[in-house]
């Protein structure tokens, strides 16, 4: 009888410890995106044709095709798992895209296939939302100030440039992803892709002006693997 009590206790301890140490799934891929060479200087945007937006900016805004940070870092690079993870169904929380000061905020918005996309106009002027996909369907909608949010979705993965025809300097990007493992590099070039189960992955980094690069990474358990990307800057 004493034996049995000890075995049950041991078993219970084992189970409890297994639950306690299980935790979220494993590994992380993180790193920095930088450039080499000399990138083109961002150009000043003249918003004088839209005074209601021009007055929102104390100094003129600059073009966002290439945004750099300290130590040659590259911002707005979409880093994502392009192979090794099965496609995931979309979350129901909408991804938000704002038109403010005649700019798109954020400049690059990443979200999943079939995830709701909520587009809002926070300006005093009309905008038309005109994403220009090649694979998904092209539509073009007017959104006057005070309109309710426009809810859309895309059913195929693609990088889609977004423009407003009324304000030709406005430029943004939609990154429609197949799964939830993506990140956008911040001003210091850093990105993190957590919660990766053990496996072989292809990590791809995409920049709207400099193209894309991929690297293969294997995650064994819960380690953090560092992956850095270096893009060749173009002078134009």
């Amino acid at each position, binding site marked *: 009888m004493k034996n049995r009590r000890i075995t049950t206790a041991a078993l219970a301890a084992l189970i409890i410890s297994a639950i306690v140490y299980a935790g979220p799934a494993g590994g992380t891929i993180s790193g920095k995106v930088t450039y080499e060479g000399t990138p083109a200087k961002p150009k000043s945007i003249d918003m004088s044709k839209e005074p209601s937006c021009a007055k929102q900016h104390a100094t003129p805004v600059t073009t966002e095709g290439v945004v750099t940070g300290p130590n040659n870092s590259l911002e707005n690079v979409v880093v994502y798992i392009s192979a090794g993870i099965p496609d995931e169904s979309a979350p129901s929380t909408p991804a938000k895209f704002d038109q403010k000061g005649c700019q798109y905020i954020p400049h690059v918005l990443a979200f999943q296939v079939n995830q709701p996309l909520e587009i809002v106009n926070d300006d005093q002027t*009309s905008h*038309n939302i*005109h994403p220009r996909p090649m694979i998904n369907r092209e*539509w*073009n*909608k007017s*959104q*006057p100030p005070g309109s309710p949010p426009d809810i859309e979705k895309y059913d195929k993965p693609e990088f889609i440039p977004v423009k407003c*025809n009324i304000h*030709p300097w406005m430029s943004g990007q939609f990154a429609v992803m197949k799964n939830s493992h993506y990140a956008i590099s911040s001003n210091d070039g850093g990105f993190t892709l957590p919660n990766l189960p053990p496996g072989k992955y292809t990590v791809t980094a995409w920049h709207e002006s400099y193209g894309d690069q991929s690297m293969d990474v294997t995650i064994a358990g819960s380690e953090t693997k560092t992956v850095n990307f270096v893009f060749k800057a173009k002078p134009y």
Partner: protein
Amino acid sequence: MRTLTTNSVRTFLALLAVSFLPALATAQQVQTHAGKWTGNADRGKQLYFRYCWGCHGFRGDGAGENAPYLNILPRNFVAATFKCRSTPTGTLPTDQDLYNTIERGIVNSNMPSWITLTGQNRADLISFIKTFSPRWMAEKPGEPLHIPAEPKLTVDSIKRGQALFQKLECWKCHGQEGRGDGPSASTLTDNNDQPIRPFNFAAGSRFKCGSTNEDLYRIFNTGLDGTPMPSFADVVKPDEAWDLVHYLRTLQVTHKSPELAMWESTKEGAALIAAAKPHGTPTGSGVR
């Protein structure tokens, strides 16, 4: 008395099954029904390579031999984004939309009005151009816009339309007189990145996709996909839309319409029309 033997039943069923095969084959193709005709893609192919491919291209991608010389490139059937539709922005047009485009042509472009082609020809062509894009198999055309009956024309309707033209900021591209000279007009590009002008209401009577009040109502509700002209369906209510149609007709100062006549009978309208009327010689020199 003859009885049904198992053998004869089997043969009958086999024959019945076989007779369904042709139906299955056509069921896999997308059907085209336009006007009173059903399209046939094989006949359409003959017609396409006789009449259309010079502009629309061997692959239907709008990159035909003539295309480099055209300002406003021919329609790219591979992308299957169409300007003239009765369906919402981002959706495929109906067969009747495509039929109407072939019949009418597209004003101020190189797409002629193909009245030389019979109704059957046009339906066949539509069947064939659908083979250029997988979209036709994957999705159905959008739900056609319901156009309510046009309400009575009144001065108040025109005035409400005038207010809407300001509020929706149509003038940003189309200009205050609707001449296509608004502040954003010079920077507009279409989806081929070619410069494109907004419609100039003062220049004539026909629009890109038709010439009636219903056509005008439809155009700004569906938008012209592939161009800067967006859809306003989410932001105008049907009666507001009719008000806007009535006002837009008054911008067409060279085209006699009931709306223009009514507007001219008011003091404000008469002043605006007098200021907007083009002056100059018939040959065009000195036109202001």
